[in-house]
């Protein structure tokens, strides 16, 4: 797998960070994402991203309970996988090393 595929993009990284705090379903992830980034995220876009992340192995999912308020549709809960955690750490390391290099440049 290429290095690029191992690293999450900005939206994926934010979702991974949200899932660090435990299992969440789509709407919870969307609400937390919007709260933290102050950017709108349509549920459709979210599920496309979640699908892609699942394909990459960053996440695991399971179907949860249905609810009359949801028209009998079950929730889909997502959890962080070991690979997702690893990719988040890779991203963090890459950002840290960039920051260190920037700080090491002498200011004239």
């Amino acid at each position, binding site marked *: 797998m290429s290095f690029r595929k191992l690293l999450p993009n900005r939206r994926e990284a934010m979702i991974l960070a949200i899932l660090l705090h435990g299992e969440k379903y*789509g709407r919870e992830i969307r609400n937390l994402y919007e709260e933290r980034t102050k950017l709108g995220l*349509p549920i*459709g*876009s979210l*599920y*496309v991203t979640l699908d892609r992340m699942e394909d990459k192995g960053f996440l695991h999912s399971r179907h949860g309970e249905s*609810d009359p*308020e949801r*028209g009998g549709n*079950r929730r889909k809960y997502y959890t962080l996988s070991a690979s997702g955690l690893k990719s988040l750490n890779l991203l963090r390391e890459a950002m840290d090393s960039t920051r260190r290099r920037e700080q090491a440049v002498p200011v004239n």
Partner: protein
Amino acid sequence: MALSTQNCIDVDQAFPDADPHEQLLFKTAFISWLAEIERLPRQNRKRLGRHKVHTEYEIDLINAPVIEVNDERFVRRFSVDSRSGEVRFVLSDPIRAVDPSRDPTFDDHVTVLYPNGKPLGFRESLPECILNRSAFLVPRRHREALVGDLLEDVSEMRRGGYGERFISFVVIWHIGIAALRRCGPTVRRIVMMVCINRSLRRWLAE
């Protein structure tokens, strides 16, 4: 009213009776929507612009059925007969196309051909404001989770006192993008313009 990325959308004029908070939300939604279009490759935008997609495909989809999509990869082309208003998805595998005449729920105005396309099984649970109004393509893979989340949103918005028009707009926006993100750029662009035009025209007509 023809819309394109080049045209300026005057949201204040389009929704004169919306309160300032709603106006702001409409604007945010429109900007996000147009931003999605802007992400399309430049070449595609040019090609589509030459064919005047936004005017050619101004069609009435109000009576279209709600359908689900089992695999967007099968869509190769999206064509519209401007006279009859017939919408046709041209598939890579024509054998799998569904004959709409066999399904009484497809009406005469709009024909949507899609492999295994069928009305959503739970359409009675969809909000009244969108039922029988629009053709939505909901990817099967996350249909249950997505529609469930949307219905939770709808309940919350109703509790929050939002109007039905606003709620239907939000729902259209969410579902529209759900479908479009996985389609090819051509289908995405056309469907998006149809959605925008239809939504705006409906509100303007009310």
